[in-house]
């Protein structure tokens, strides 16, 4: 009986991963029309369960989270998304990352008002993403 109760208690934890909704948030101060495209690209990708996109000046930073079982082919997902997004925005400098650090930081930047701060932070993140050791 005790074991049964334990098993029943554990079931919800195994099912947490099953909600299929994708969370995509976009921050764009200059042009609201641009949002649609990047949101669509992220939502159409089957390998990604969440994503943030930030437009600032002529740059676009996209931070996504790959589905847990697809973690091993992160760089491939990044490459694919980057290609698709670059097609939609040929005159923007696009940066795509599937790193959790970038996702976490962009989540905070979505609420940031000061554009100068956002821009600075973006540069910092890009530098951080290149670091390998």
């Amino acid at each position, binding site marked *: 009986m005790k074991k049964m109760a334990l098993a029943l208690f554990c079931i919800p934890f195994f099912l947490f991963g099953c909600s299929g909704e994708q969370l995509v948030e976009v921050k764009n101060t200059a042009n609201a029309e641009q949002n649609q495209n990047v949101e669509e690209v992220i939502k159409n990708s089957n390998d990604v369960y969440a994503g943030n996109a930030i437009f600032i000046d002529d740059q676009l930073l996209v931070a996504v989270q790959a589905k847990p079982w697809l973690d091993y082919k992160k760089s491939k997902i990044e490459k694919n998304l980057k290609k698709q997004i670059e097609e939609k925005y040929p005159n923007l400098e696009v940066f795509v990352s599937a*790193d*959790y*650090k*970038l996702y*976490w930081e962009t989540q905070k930047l979505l609420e940031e008002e000061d554009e100068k701060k956002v821009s600075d932070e973006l540069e910092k993140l890009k530098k*951080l*993403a290149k*670091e*390998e*050791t």
Partner: protein
Amino acid sequence: MDQQQYQQIEDQITPPTPYFKNVIKAFLVGGLICTIGHAITYFYIIFFDFTETTVGNPTAATMVFIAMILTGLGLYRKLGQFAGAGSAVPVTGFSNAVVSAAIEHKTEGLVLGVGGNIFKLAGSVIVFGVASAFFVALIKLILVTMGVVEW
């Protein structure tokens, strides 16, 4: 009594090894250690400037440090007795191997005791790691030069 008879009697008396129970214990404790490691990973990502590629080093260092303290206090031995391979396979087991050897040979002096014996268990692991890393890197270099894969 010949050897065969003795063997038979021994087999009868020896209690059966609870393989399944041991495997479950090792699985749970090993998983718990790795979960703690993952929590530390997220701690470093969220509060410090580490990305998923760079966070491995501080995480491993922290886990080794924690296991070192536990070994010094004699708690890791109890964990090892309970969990077996579950506590030996993660990086904490490596730390335990180094520190316990150092503690064991402390009485023999700093140089010949601690220095000579600290890597008794872990030394082979380190040498094997370095050598295999060298060969893997060599194979990858050859493959990259041939144009089969990218860095």
